[in-house]
């Protein structure tokens, strides 16, 4: 038996989207994400909610090694979203990352093109915890002055990779960070430095 998706597909998808939209519009300000679905492990409810809300047959999805190892996860996503799974990160519209420590370099994902920078990958990462008002320092659109955000775990060289990602603006990937019950956004427009 496949685990069910959203209990209320229309309004749960809307609520998830709004949380993600607000998170990307206000980097460094985590939003509440009441994730409905109860997906097969190791997919987290937050990753599942975002996948269900935003992916479909038009969006190739890349899964990290942890998620790709589970045939149940692939079956769950295929059934509920209809999204094609891809093994090539450079072709992915969305990438779901369960284990941020083993996330491929950001530069390996689709970066968009100068004419169409929107064709870059959106990465959705599952973290253990996200806290604001401490940690990394953020500057950019959506931020009143500066904001701070603490991510755990913080993958190696993550800050350097984010700096490189920002330097390529308007090209670059956008990050949606999740933790239990929360979502935060790090769009490519945000400049991130160590606190």
């Amino acid at each position, binding site marked *: 038996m496949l685990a069910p998706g959203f209990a209320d597909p229309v*309004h749960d998808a809307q609520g998830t*989207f709004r949380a993600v*939209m607000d998170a*990307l519009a206000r980097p460094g300000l985590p939003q509440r994400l009441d994730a409905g679905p109860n997906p097969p492990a190791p997919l987290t409810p937050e990753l599942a909610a975002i996948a269900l*809300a*935003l992916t*479909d047959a038009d969006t190739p999805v890349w899964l990290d090694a942890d998620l790709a190892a589970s045939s149940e996860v692939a079956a769950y996503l295929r059934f509920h979203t209809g999204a094609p799974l891809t093994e090539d990160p450079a072709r992915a519209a969305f990438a779901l990352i369960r284990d941020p420590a083993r996330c491929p370099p950001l530069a390996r994902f689709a970066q968009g093109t100068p004419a169409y920078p929107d064709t870059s990958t959106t990465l959705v990462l599952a973290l253990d915890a996200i806290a604001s008002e401490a940690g990394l320092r953020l500057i950019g659109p959506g931020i009143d002055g500066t904001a701070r955000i603490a991510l755990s775990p913080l993958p190696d060289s993550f800050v350097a990779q984010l700096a490189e990602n920002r330097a390529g603006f308007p090209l670059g990937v956008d990050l949606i960070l999740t933790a239990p019950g929360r979502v935060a956004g790090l*769009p*490519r*427009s945000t400049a991130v430095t160590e606190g």
Partner: protein
Amino acid sequence: MSAMGMLPRDGGAPDGAQVPSPVRERDRVRDAPYPERPDPSPQPSPERERAPGASEAGEAGYNFAYLDEGTKRMIRRAILKAIAVPGYQVPFASREMPMPYGWGTGGVQVTAAILGRADVLKVIDQGADDTTNAVSIRRFFARTSGIATTTRTTAATIIQTRHRIPETPLREGQILVYQVPIPEPLRFLEPRETETRQLHALAEYGAMHVKLYEDISRHGHIATTYAYPVEVAGRYVMDPSPTPKFDNPKMDQSPALQLFGAGRERRIYAVPPYTSVRSLDFEDHPFRVQEFTEPCALCGASGHYLDEVVTDDSGGRMYVCSDTDICETRVAEAAR
């Protein structure tokens, strides 16, 4: 008074009719002699109201907020990318809506994609809640989503607009959705999409500066009074939609999220909150907004954008607020 006298004073309201407001004649449409009929709508609650007949579930036979879920997902993805690249126009597969292209289909699609049950929607056209197209769009959402609508800028979570930004400062958490006819700020300099796309890719905006400077050399002023181009977050030059340049400063560092939808031209773009929006100008000719020499004839406010109303056929004029909500609120406060 002409045939207009036959109309009930606050006609179709459920639109914040609690304030017994002197509102100006907005629509020539009303010059036609309509048959009088009783107002069937229930008394509205003070700030939020449902359209007559609208249920929680919205119009039977259509999805919540009209669009199917696949279309909403597609628009939502475009909105996220638009927010990530402020001022860049994201192409999207605009759908045929049950209202004409050019009448707000882009704004309607954006609003439909973001709208949730808890939202309170305000729709304005020319700054006013009671213009026919604003009424039509507000009614569309009330019918298809059953959500609450309002005329109060402060009570709204989402404000869809054509041609104005409310005078009341917006706050964090509010979303302003603009209806955009021509999203490409370079279109009148270069009609070809293939060319303008390259110019944006290269951030090659010299032609726009040359055009503005030609105005100065010919007229002594920049002769662009609305849809005045802006630079967003130091990168993309963006069309703010045909708002008067008077409203441009309100876009800069606004606490509200600003989303722009162009249905016919199939583009969505965005300005996140707290983002720099700079009106293009020159050191020797800095950007300036329109100034009105007299205050609003109804509420007495100065510093608001005013409509010029022709009061007779011998040159009589009066100036009144284009933003009906703030004007009515001020009149009501003064009467108290």
